[in-house]
């Protein structure tokens, strides 16, 4: 299988860090240890894999699991239009994972969005602030324990700066 070649290569290059590989509905998926994210991504971006594009990054919240958050990255190689999904689970308390801003420029906004919506930290990010919500917003709206219709308190008027 063409799609499994990259998974086999990943398992060989990072025997301790790649926890699980599979092909899910036609897309290869690799589950890795979060500590190895930067190395794995650097490996994938380089020759011969050429996953030069970070298509998307997002997060999933499973409140009942001990490893509450699951980061999901989609990388893409322009030659052959190959896709790969890389996942890593993070603990609920103080969830943080290495920033990919050094590898891809759009990681900046993607990570700000995840920080905003899930409260996952990205050590190494140059300016980790909320992206969509305003300063002073409390909580992280895409977490499962954030109620759909929760109201936020009004902010005091800002002093003229």
């Amino acid at each position: 299988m063409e799609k499994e070649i990259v998974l086999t290569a990943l398992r060989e290059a990072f025997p301790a860090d790649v926890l699980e590989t599979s092909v899910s509905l036609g897309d290869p998926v690799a589950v890795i240890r979060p500590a190895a994210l930067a190395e794995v991504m650097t490996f994938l971006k380089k020759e011969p894999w050429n996953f030069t594009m970070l298509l998307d990054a997002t997060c999933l919240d499973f409140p009942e699991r001990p490893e509450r958050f699951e980061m999901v990255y989609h990388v893409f190689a322009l030659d052959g239009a190959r896709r790969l999904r890389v996942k890593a689970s993070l603990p609920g308390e103080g969830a943080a994972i290495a920033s990919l801003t050094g590898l891809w420029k759009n990681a900046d906004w993607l990570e700000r969005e995840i920080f905003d919506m899930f409260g996952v930290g990205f050590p190494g990010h140059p300016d980790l602030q909320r992206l969509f919500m305003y300063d002073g917003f409390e909580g992280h709206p895409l977490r499962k324990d954030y109620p759909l219709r929760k109201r936020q308190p009004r902010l005091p008027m800002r002093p003229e700066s």
Partner: protein
Amino acid sequence: MTTRLQSRARPESLLLNMGPSHPAMHGTIRVMLELDGERILNSEVEVGYLHRGFEKTCEHRTWFNLLIYTDRLNYVSPLINNLGYVMAVEKLLGLEIPERAQWIRVLMSELSRVSDHLTCLAAMAMECGAFTAFLYKMKAREFLWDVIEQTTGARMTTSYVRVGGVRADLHPDFEAAVRRGVDETRRVLKDVRGLLDKNTIFLGRTRDIAVMTPENAVSYGWTGPCLRSTGVAYDVRRAQPYLTYDRVAFDIPVGERGDNFDRYLVRMREMEQSLRIIEQCLKPLVRTSRAPAGLEPAEAIRAARDRKPEGPVRLSPNLEGSEKDVYPEIMASAKEAVIPPKEDAYTTIEGLIAHFKHFMKGHGLRPPKGEAYCAVEGGNGELGFYIVSDGSDRPYRLHLRAPCFHIVAALEELIRGRYVADVIPTFGSMNMIGGELDR
């Protein structure tokens, strides 16, 4: 609260706010500029003014009900958004859809793409002072939306593409409408190219301004016309053909310099290719016969009290095109995924129960446990839906990969060192769509 720009600015620079409500910012977005005279030293883009919690809302709506929210993402080409979501769900379900429905989807996608590009370029031209070009393009868009309205019943919030197929068959007169739309659009494209391609004012504001290199574009995750303007010929329709895109002939126009003008030109040439695809869709779609009119629904219900009424039941006009005899061609046959034909719901107990169960809480559409990422070529680039299903009647998580999110992320870099006036055509050529960016 000081912004990053305020805290880092030199004390002698002028700080200027563009937006969130600015005539040249289509959509609410705030660009803060640090200026030295007219020159931009630094900038900061603030987004989120149109954030409506799309992803959170979707987690609380059933698979069927959340379709209408996808209309409101890229509101200029809602049919492609519908398609992206529906195809991701179909990937989870493993549904095969009938060929006619596939062709209809291709036709509708291309109509939407042309109207999307027309809107983007119209706004861009208007902001550069070319009001004539704006009006011409808006006129062409109306003809295309006439086709869409005729079949789907709505101009923008269509919700036409459904899981398993499309909501209704094409309107019987669609061919004439499509041909008129294509002809009018061709004429407008020719006129607009004549007005803008060698126009000194337009060239002065777009040529060699905000140049993006291919490497940078890839690093920012650019896709669609903006990526192709830098010379990278990546198009989802060609790289991973979905629906019947492998059976139509079209070229992928690419640019050379990656500046504002190339982004304009690639869109112009892409519209010509889309019109080509639209014309190729006509042949497999043309149908001559039309379902005969039948019993009135009330009459049929009354008759059904005694025994099953003979002959077809006439549907209300807003269900036109989804009659039972065309259903197999526009909808998949998988009973667990699609709504039964309305005639069955009116006249048979099985149809009524199936219809009822489809919309009942906890029943209806329930894709199996799993996750799927499905990408289609949207107006702005790769529109991807990442959906996680836990087997229930609503998605566990639905994430949209919005193409213009990645494109607008590069704005700060593109306008650095340029003049204030360059922000306008640069921003215009990106085709920022608030509904899609902020979700």
